């Protein structure tokens, strides 16, 4: 296998050149602890605060509303677990959707097992949730709404600004998991009307193991992680300076590429090419979708087999099939769309970045039909 065609950018991205260049000094010469007084330490401190300013500019927030964390997952855990504590006198009801990433889903499950009452709004066949359903789910004891900005498996972009408006009217805190959105689509916190927004470095060209949380000024969120008092007492642990610097540099780079017209064009070319394969369906919202995500189900075949055959041609992709998950359950997101277990089994997600080319798409469109055909010829469900 010579060339790799990387179409799994929703899983993680290549680290952007700018991120590597920006981070390198902090992996080599500039290793000081930002809490130290001497110049070497202060160099790290300056880099940290500059990174915070960069992130704030992109989010349209103030720098002191941005906190760095160890991952998107940590940001989400912190946001949800601490937001509900702020409102514990008001009640124990949380509203979310049934297509959230496990980072949100399992945090809510944990809270549900510990006395909280969770309403999961049902998505429609495109992965959209209804504002009316949200409105009628709101109760006097509702303390938090958490709905993702965009879905990682099917690329659907949700109506965050409208949800936020409703949350404001009803004085309910609103968190959004924007891990797939930041650096891909506009995510100005004022336009989105959010109180809390989580994202992650490695989905936008930064390194793995660094995330950030936007916390609206005035929300006195308690820390999730206690210790030496870094991040203004809110998130302890010596700051991951190389990671934070990479996140900020990658974000600046990513935002510079927006709107991702070229990525969108390649995505649409991929979608129309793949849909030429018989009994193949697009999953997610055909219109309101992330520029980089093309997702499908192929009837009568199974996703892990598909991934293995794609891999033999150097094509990297992912699937929500049961066999490719550790739990052996098909993805809850695909089931939430109303797909049968059997159909959800044949799912494929191809996710693009600015690094992808027409050549990548042509190559994929050349290989994929034969692979699907091969698997269908083996399938007891396929009868021509």
């Amino acid at each position: 296998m010579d060339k790799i065609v990387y179409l799994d950018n929703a899983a993680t991205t290549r680290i952007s050149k700018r991120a590597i260049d920006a981070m390198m000094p902090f992996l080599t010469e500039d290793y000081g602890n930002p809490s130290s007084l001497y110049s070497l330490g202060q160099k790290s401190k300056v880099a940290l605060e500059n990174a915070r300013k960069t992130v704030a500019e992109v989010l349209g927030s103030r720098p002191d509303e941005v906190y760095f964390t160890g991952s998107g997952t940590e940001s989400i855990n912190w946001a949800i677990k601490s937001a509900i504590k702020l409102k514990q006198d008001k009640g124990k009801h949380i509203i979310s959707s049934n297509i959230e990433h496990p980072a949100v889903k399992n945090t809510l499950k944990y809270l549900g097992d510990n006395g909280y009452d969770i309403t999961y709004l049902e998505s429609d066949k495109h992965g959209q949730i209804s504002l009316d359903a949200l409105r009628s789910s709101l109760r006097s004891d509702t303390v938090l709404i958490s709905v993702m900005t965009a879905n990682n498996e099917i690329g659907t972009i949700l109506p965050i600004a409208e949800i936020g408006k409703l949350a404001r009217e009803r004085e309910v805190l609103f968190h959004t998991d924007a891990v797939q959105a930041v650096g891909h689509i506009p995510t100005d916190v004022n336009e989105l009307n959010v109180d809390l927004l989580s994202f992650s470095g490695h989905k936008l060209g930064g390194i793995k193991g660094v995330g950030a949380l936007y916390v609206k000024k005035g929300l006195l969120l308690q820390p999730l992680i206690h210790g030496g008092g870094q991040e203004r007492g809110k998130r302890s642990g010596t700051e991951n300076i190389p990671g934070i610097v990479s996140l900020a540099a990658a974000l600046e780079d990513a935002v510079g590429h927006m709107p991702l017209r070229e990525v969108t064009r390649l995505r649409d070319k991929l979608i129309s090419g793949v849909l030429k394969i018989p009994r193949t369906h697009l999953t997610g919202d055909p219109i309101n979708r992330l520029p980089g995500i093309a997702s499908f189900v192929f009837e009568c075949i199974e996703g892990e087999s598909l991934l293995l055959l794609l891999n033999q041609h150097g094509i990297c992709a992912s699937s929500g099939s049961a066999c490719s998950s550790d739990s052996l359950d098909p993805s809850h997101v695909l089931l939430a769309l109303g797909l049968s277990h059997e159909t959800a089994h044949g799912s494929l997600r191809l996710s693009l970045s600015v690094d992808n080319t027409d050549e990548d798409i042509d190559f994929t469109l050349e290989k994929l039909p034969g692979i699907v055909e091969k698997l269908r010829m083996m399938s007891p469900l396929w009868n021509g």
Partner: protein
Amino acid sequence: MYSEKVMEHFTNPRNVGNMPDADAVGEVGNAKCGDIMKIFLKVDNDVITDVRFQTFGCGAAVATSSIATEMVKGKTISDALSITNKAVADALDGLPSAKMHCSVLAEQAIKAAITDYYEKQGIDPTSHVGCDMQCEGCGGSH
């Protein structure tokens, strides 16, 4: 995560396809992940002379079906019945533990086909097959 042998069988599966004139057919479904395996047999004088399979499932499911068809071909019915899922997995140089249930599917598919063979001969299969075809491996789908 898969051995070379698994990948080899997955990439070039043996005996794949339909067999319209089969003497016996066994189809089982995997309760764990929802996959389906179908095995077709041609039997002559208690000897399995030809075999085909169709599988809707993961790489391990395809590879176990493929090697299982090789293992039963030319065997007598009773020898074929003694093939265990462990023997199937071993023949593939092992499977990841999360994928052992796929080899169970292969064992059950063979047994289901042989059950069908006995039934078509008017013989009660239970005492021969020694499986009520209601276990987890076949999910009671027989």
